[in-house]
């Protein structure tokens, strides 16, 4: 194998791919990066730890001899990152079976694993499901994934649900205390209805590599794995799915409200940023939760946060518009409330809170946009 490539290009695709390599060394080849050079297809890099696999390709390479090698992903990627921004020549030294990277008058030699032990990435019999603009998927993941549980004995709650029906995709995440839902209308209908739960780690990698362009990203399936891919740039993320039935989330979204409040997003955000500083009181059995109590009045909203140890905070937000009854009191986990307000702060000047009672879920959204919903379960006010 022998090829030359510009350092920035190699560093770019290496940094994307190497993150799929395993960090444990129980199976050495899985911490490897598979480098395939071919005059016909350019340079293809792949890595996998069997749960997730990433493959990327670049045509911006000049290949002299075709070949495939497997080297340690972490080390290779760190090294490439710090190489000079010139053309690099990568070749195999056949006698000692090592990879030689030449940059100017310097060179480095890397030991290789046996590429025959490397698992095949199942990118061949791929069934296309749908395509959508990258920026849309990226936004949907950014605005929902945070609501998933960090750990939960029902593993599906640690992932993000993709619920697909002909011409719409719903992206949903929940930890049972809150739920974020994004509704996306598809330009071209999906090939079939489908529901699957993508692990949080895959979502992380995906948001990292998606860019803010309207170039399409496709979603497809291959033997029980989901694939996010762009054929034209030879980019694939293949991920195994979290098994288990995701609960029906639609009944969780409240429909009938006793009170709806519309207010300035920025004022609410500022108040909550102050409220979150107030430590929660330790309760005997449970972890302390930072909380904020909302007192809904006719033309204003009172927010208060109290800590036995630290003191208390009382805020008034004026110029609110209320529909329905006043005098309702609701307590929220400040962190969960602030998460959504921070997101809406960047896109909506007004925000609406819809209450179903002091102990039942509230719906939070941008009044102009029905496609992004956040359901938050209140804390029991003491």
């Amino acid at each position: 194998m022998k090829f030359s490539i510009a350092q920035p290009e190699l560093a770019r695709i290496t940094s994307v791919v190497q993150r799929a390599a395993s960090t444990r060394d129980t199976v050495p080849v899985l911490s490897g990066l598979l480098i395939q050079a071919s005059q016909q297809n350019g340079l293809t890099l792949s890595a996998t730890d069997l749960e997730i696999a990433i493959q990327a390709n670049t045509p911006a390479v000049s290949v002299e001899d075709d070949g495939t090698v497997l080297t340690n992903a972490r080390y290779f990627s760190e090294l490439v990152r710090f190489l000079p921004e010139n053309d690099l020549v990568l070749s195999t030294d056949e006698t000692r079976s090592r990879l030689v990277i030449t940059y100017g008058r310097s060179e480095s030699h890397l030991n290789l694993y046996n590429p025959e032990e490397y698992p095949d990435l199942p990118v061949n019999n791929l069934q296309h499901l749908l395509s959508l603009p990258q920026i849309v998927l990226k936004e949907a993941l950014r605005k929902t994934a945070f609501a998933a549980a960090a750990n939960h004995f029902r593993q599906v709650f640690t992932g993000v649900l993709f619920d697909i029906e002909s011409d719409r995709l719903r992206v949903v995440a929940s930890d049972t205390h809150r739920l974020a839902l994004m509704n996306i209308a598809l330009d071209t209908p999906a090939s079939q209805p489908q529901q699957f739960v993508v692990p949080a780690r895959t979502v992380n990698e995906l948001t990292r590599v998606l860019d803010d362009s309207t170039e399409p990203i496709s979603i497809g399936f291959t033997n029980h794995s989901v694939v996010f891919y762009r054929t034209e740039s030879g980019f694939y993320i293949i991920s195994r799915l979290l098994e288990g039935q995701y609960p029906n989330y639609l009944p969780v979204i409240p429909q009938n409200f006793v009170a709806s409040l519309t207010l300035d997003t920025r004022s609410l955000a500022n108040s909550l940023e102050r409220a979150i500083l107030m430590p929660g009181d330790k309760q005997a059995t449970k972890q302390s939760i930072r909380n904020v109590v909302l007192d809904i009045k006719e033309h204003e909203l009172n927010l208060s946060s109290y800590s036995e140890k630290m003191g208390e905070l009382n805020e008034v937000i004026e110029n609110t518009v209320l529909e329905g009854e006043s005098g309702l009191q609701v307590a929220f986990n400040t962190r969960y409330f602030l998460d959504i307000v921070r997101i809406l702060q960047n896109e909506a000047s007004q925000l609406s809170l819809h209450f179903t009672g002091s102990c039942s879920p509230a719906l939070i959204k941008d009044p102009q946009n029905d496609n992004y919903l956040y359901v938050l379960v209140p804390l029991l006010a003491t």
Partner: protein
Amino acid sequence: MSKFANVVGQTRAIRFLEAVLESGRFQHAYLFIGPPGVGKTRAARIFAREILTRGSTKGADLFNQGQHPDYFFTRRDKARVSIEEVRRMEEWLAYRPYMASHRVVLLPEAHLLTPEAGNALLKTLEEPPEYAVFLLISDQQDVLPTIVSRCQEVRFFPLPVPEIEQVLLGDGVPPDKARVIAQLSRGSVKTARILTGHSAVEQAMLRVHFFLEDISRRGEMAILEKAEALEKDEVERTLFLTALESVLRDVVVMVESGREDLLLFRESAGLAGSFRGKGAQLREVLMEITSLQKKYWTNVNPLLINLNLLFRLRQAFKEG
């Protein structure tokens, strides 16, 4: 030849496991239960390998290298299996089998699960994914009953003396030594193999006799010295305690039946004289020693166990 040829004895358990493999229908969880060192883990590993390599040979190498992607082996942290380990397993189990038809979790020390870990495991055992097979192994009966009720039990029994003797002969142990060890090992191949590491097994009985005399002569001092001596050396401890048990057993048998032909070691007959009429008490002490011995496998300072155990013995002497 049976796949389970490496497991000595345990015909009933093995026949059952083979029948399960034959049928290809697996329960979600099996609990391998029985005394330490009789082949539970060995059988469970083979069972796991057979489940994972059914209908394909390519998994076998991976399994033997400990790298099969559909096999999870829980590890313990010091003397506990922690809730973090159980969570790690649950996260792993959320994915479908990679190459086999099932994913197998082997939990070699179910009795070492912390209460929290046990409770966390319950939730998964209650509603496991359809491709999951749990193999739990326990030396003791004190696994959470709620866990036991969710598992199919596979019982393992102490091995007969001749079978252990055969194993030892197969290991190349000289026949004289093998015979003594087989009698001392209380049905456990593991104990037997530990004992082969000891240079003077044959004298174990003599040392026990000497110690018993020493107690009646010097009292507590002898106990304290012995407890300390046994703390350091696991082989010596296993040997001494099993020898002690065998001697006491012989004494009980002699006192109650008076039949010298039932004794493991003829030499014990002489001791029986000083215990006449105290058979019931002695039997109680023997049971207690056995149950205290189990604590060596748990997180208790061995020195404390030694002291407890030996003082209990002394008490029996006084009463006797």
